[in-house]
């Protein structure tokens, strides 16, 4: 079994290598000097990161006591977070309404198939293309970003959700059906509580995804930190771009930690009460005291 798996991986690697060779038409020479180019580019243009992006902008005049709150980094990141938050919430509501109709164990085929096709159609356009479309239709700004990411969230999250619903055990659904619960009642009282952990996890993942993609859609003028990244790229200010990328990385890590905390309320890991370092130290101290008293 182990050797078979190893063989499959080796075979897939071979196929991937062959395909890549076809794509570059055998011209591997262009890789030559790539690493040294990267080192030169990083040392000369990106390092050290220019943290002036976290200082107050010269215009418009900052009216805040702390200059950071008027900085490009803060304003851009906050706008990206707001766009991501609103589009995740709206997208989640849209996605859950549609995924309840797309799951084959919850609805008949004549309902689920058209809804699945619709979700695939929405998902087939990347958020960047949605952003370009909305920038054309309603102009530059965060509203285009919100609409673009909402549509993409509906398509993407909808698929994740209906797959989770289809994977759930059939027993609670059958018990509900036999009892005579209506379809909406089964969905709200059985399906959602049973899959709460997955739904929360997907919601947090989608928020993080939207924060990361907020940077991309900003480049086409749909608001957020991406707008500033795009501007700095145009003026070859890579050190500032690097500082903003570090900021995005920190925010993504913080969202991941937040996600871990939120999910701990619903997942089964919470059922196992692991000892904390504090309790272990207290126990050790107690044991030491008892042995001293006994001596």
């Amino acid at each position, binding site marked *: 079994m182990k050797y078979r798996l190893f063989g499959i991986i080796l075979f897939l690697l071979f196929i991937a290598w062959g395909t890549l060779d076809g794509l570059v038409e055998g011209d591997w020479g262009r890789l030559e000097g790539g690493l040294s180019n990267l080192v030169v580019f990083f040392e000369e243009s990106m390092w050290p990161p220019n943290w002036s992006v976290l200082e107050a902008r010269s215009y418009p005049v900052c009216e805040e006591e702390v200059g950071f709150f008027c900085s490009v980094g803060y304003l851009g990141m906050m706008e990206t977070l707001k766009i991501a938050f609103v589009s995740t919430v709206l997208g989640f509501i849209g996605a859950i309404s549609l995924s309840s109709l797309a799951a084959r164990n919850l609805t008949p085929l004549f309902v689920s198939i058209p809804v699945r096709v619709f979700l695939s159609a929405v998902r087939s356009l990347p958020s960047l293309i949605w952003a370009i479309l909305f920038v054309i239709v309603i102009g530059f700004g965060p509203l285009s970003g919100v609409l673009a990411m909402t549509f993409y969230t509906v398509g993407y999250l909808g698929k994740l959700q209906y797959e989770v619903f289809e994977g759930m*055990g059939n*027993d*609670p*659904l*059958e*018990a*509900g*059906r*036999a*009892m*005579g*619960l209506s379809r909406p*009642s089964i969905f709200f*009282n*059985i399906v959602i*509580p*049973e*899959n*709460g*952990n997955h739904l929360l996890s997907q919601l947090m993942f989608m928020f993080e995804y939207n924060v990361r993609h907020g940077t991309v859609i900003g480049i086409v003028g749909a608001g957020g930190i991406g707008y500033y990244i795009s501007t700095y790229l145009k003026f070859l200010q890579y050190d500032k771009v690097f500082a903003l990328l570090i900021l995005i990385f920190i925010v993504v890590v913080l969202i991941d930690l937040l996600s871990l905390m939120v999910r701990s309320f*619903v997942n*089964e890991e919470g*059922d196992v009460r692991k000892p904390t370092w504090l309790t272990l130290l207290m126990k050790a101290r107690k044991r030491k005291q008892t042995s001293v008293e006994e001596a």
Partner: protein
Amino acid sequence: MSDTAILSLEGLIIGYDDPLVEPISLEVKPGEIVAILGPSGIGKTTLIRTIAGLVRPLGGSFELNVEPRGGLGYIPQRLGLIRHATVAHNVSLGARMRVKWSLDMFKERKERTFEAIRTLGIEDKASEPVRRLSGGQQRRVATARTLAQRPELMLADEFLGELDQTNVDIVLGAVQDLVKSGTAVIMVEHHEDNAKNFATRIWEIKDQRFIDLPIEEWVKYHSEKEEEE
């Protein structure tokens, strides 16, 4: 108690592709407790799932004379509980089926829920997620859900399995109360002793044959058969 049949089977043929048992025709009246006996894989669960409306019969027909909303209570083999929801939420699903829309709806639903929880002795677990409970406690939750529902027909698939005698007594005691109010019970059972102590009627499936006897006759039939052997 009314004498109208709660369930009527007319030449019912059960199975998925091929018939599992000979055609079944019978009636179940309110207050009856039927235990279905037979070896594993013989069609006991299929029969109960067919009556629950979850499997389409291959032939014949059946008529359920119960209210469409909440008249039928069903405890599947794996209990059908929502593992991530609390005990109270699971039990309240049964209660919500029978409480009609009114201003006092939520109060009445809560009362029913906690009455069932208390009857099954799991009030200290009411706010715990079901996944944290032991197998026996989960079976009590599933029974409490049906108790809160107060159905006219209760279908239970091996719901006494894995239970110790104390838990069996608690669960059967609760179901007895339900039966006194007119509920008919059809349960798949592996332990003949439980069937003998609790049921009023036995359905036995053996070699595709279906035997339907009142408990006294079934006991007599079996003792005669054992003597013959």
